[in-house]
């Protein structure tokens, strides 16, 4: 062995490796992390469009219900899978104890946050693309979105927000059932009540107002605007709400990680 008691010079970024590890982690089990949620979304589409196609009119009948539903399902898949990626990665690493390898490394709080969130975004957007491709058969007119940059902007912001929420939930939870509670009692209701399956125009006034308090509503509505050029709320307003939410959440996560909250007791 050579004399090695010298500190080796760093040439790359630790955050980049953590990001690649996060992507590799879900990709190695992609049947479960990508194919399964695509199938779930397809089932939603088949059932809901079959039952509701001829009964529900959206945007005053200018959009078929199935066409309306597809962007909602795509975005819901993006959001749920972004959350699932960072939250399950962290809780697994915490429970098996291998998070210590990340904690021993000289990663800055910003690199730690960016790596987990970017990994979650890749998973969310990969699943979203999968859902989009599979459901396109039922709504071929969506292949060319009316405003593609709005689609991209909301997909990126939405996945970043849910990736960050997943990170916080994963750091906070000590057990799998705490994480499941977070997912079932917060993330699921907020996504289901955000207008994935219906236009909030069809709701009674009270629930319309309540929907405007749900940040997920703006993610879905803005994303849908990208496809149709039609929305329940002006897209610039949705973008402002979503971007502000992302910034506040990111700042909170960065502050908590910097303080070592739950990670470095």
């Amino acid at each position, binding site marked *: 062995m050579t004399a090695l*008691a010298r*500190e080796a010079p760093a040439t790359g970024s630790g955050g980049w*490796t953590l990001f690649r590890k996060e992507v590799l982690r879900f990709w190695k089990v992609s049947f479960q992390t990508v194919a399964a949620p695509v199938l779930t979304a397809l089932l939603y589409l088949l059932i809901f469009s079959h039952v509701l196609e001829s009964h529900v009119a959206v945007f005053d009948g200018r959009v078929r219900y199935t066409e309306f539903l597809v962007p909602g399902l795509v975005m819901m898949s993006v959001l749920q899978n972004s959350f699932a990626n960072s939250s399950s990665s962290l809780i697994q690493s915490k429970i098996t*104890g291998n998070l210590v*390898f990340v904690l*021993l490394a*000289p990663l800055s709080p910003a690199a730690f946050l960016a790596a987990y969130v970017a990994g979650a975004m890749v998973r969310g957007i990969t699943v979203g693309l999968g859902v989009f491709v599979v459901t396109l058969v039922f709504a071929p007119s969506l292949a060319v979105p009316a405003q593609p940059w709005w689609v991209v902007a909301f997909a990126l912001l939405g996945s970043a927000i849910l990736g960050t929420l997943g990170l916080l939930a994963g750091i906070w939870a000590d057990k799998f059932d705490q994480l499941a509670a977070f997912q079932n009692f917060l993330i699921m209701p907020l996504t289901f009540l955000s207008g994935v399956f219906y236009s909030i125009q069809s709701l009674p006034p009270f629930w319309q107002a309540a929907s405007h308090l749900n940040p997920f509503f703006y993610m879905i509505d803005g994303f849908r605007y990208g496809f149709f050029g039609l929305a329940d709320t002006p897209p610039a307003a949705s973008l402002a709400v979503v971007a502000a939410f992302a910034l506040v959440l990111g700042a909170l996560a960065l502050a908590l990680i910097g303080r070592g909250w739950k990670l*470095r*007791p």
Partner: protein
Amino acid sequence: MRPAVDVVGLSRRYGRVQALDGVDLSVAEGEFFGLLGPNGAGKTTLISILAGLVRADAGRVRVMGHDVVDDYRAARRALGVVPQELVFDPFFTVRETLRIQSGYFGLSRNDAWIDEILHHLDLASKADANMRSLSGGMKRRVLVGQALVHRPPVIVLDEPTAGVDVELRQSLWSFIRRLNADGHTVILTTHYLEEAEALCGRIAMLKDGRVVALDTTQALLSRNAGLTVRLVARALPPAWLPRLLRRTGDTWHIGIDRPADLEALLADMRVAGMHVDELTLDEADLEQVFLRIMQSTPAPSARAPATEGAR
């Protein structure tokens, strides 16, 4: 020469348990340093603060001159830690595990060194095996490899041989010895006191979060030189109980200062009508020194005793 590890006034409390209570320690570059103490003495807390895994209530730690909080990046680069628990990421192979760990330290082209680690830890044939498929001993070797992947000048081993078979223990120690000979500073905690005696040049003993002994292994052995009487008997005269080092069933280990004490012990036993079935007299080894020091240091009365779960 600057110390490799410098601990000043380090304290940490968990609820009512004072895990560390003003610990001062300095480990010089190139030392093979032992950290001993019973469960709950604060060894793992000390190592966790050193590694940045746990925060201190008071005091500071420097690794190769870098503060572990203010200058955490340089401090962590200088430190390789082999954790006590057998942890691994089940998604990856041995080589992937080492590459990823290397990448966390910003070392993206490190394959030559990773190959060398695999070779020296006898892992080359398992390089492409999934971590899940490895035996406990193999996983332990990967942990050592992960700690060395960024060539840290300071290596911390937290009970690396717990539950490891004799053969692996030997090969692990010869590897660690060689790293030490190459200039690495090694800090070791272990429950196997004969290992500490054979390997460590200097030893600190912790009890209830405080350093109760700190000296070269040689000095500890000679300063606390005494004799140990091992006798097999049904009972021991109550007056001798304070000098009891250890008891297993009917076998009693009693520390004495000079041979004359042995006569007094036997006389007391005869008076009490106690029969001695077997008797041997041993020179002090580190285990006995350890037991004597632990026994002669009273637990501070104002504090709850440190418990097993405190880390």
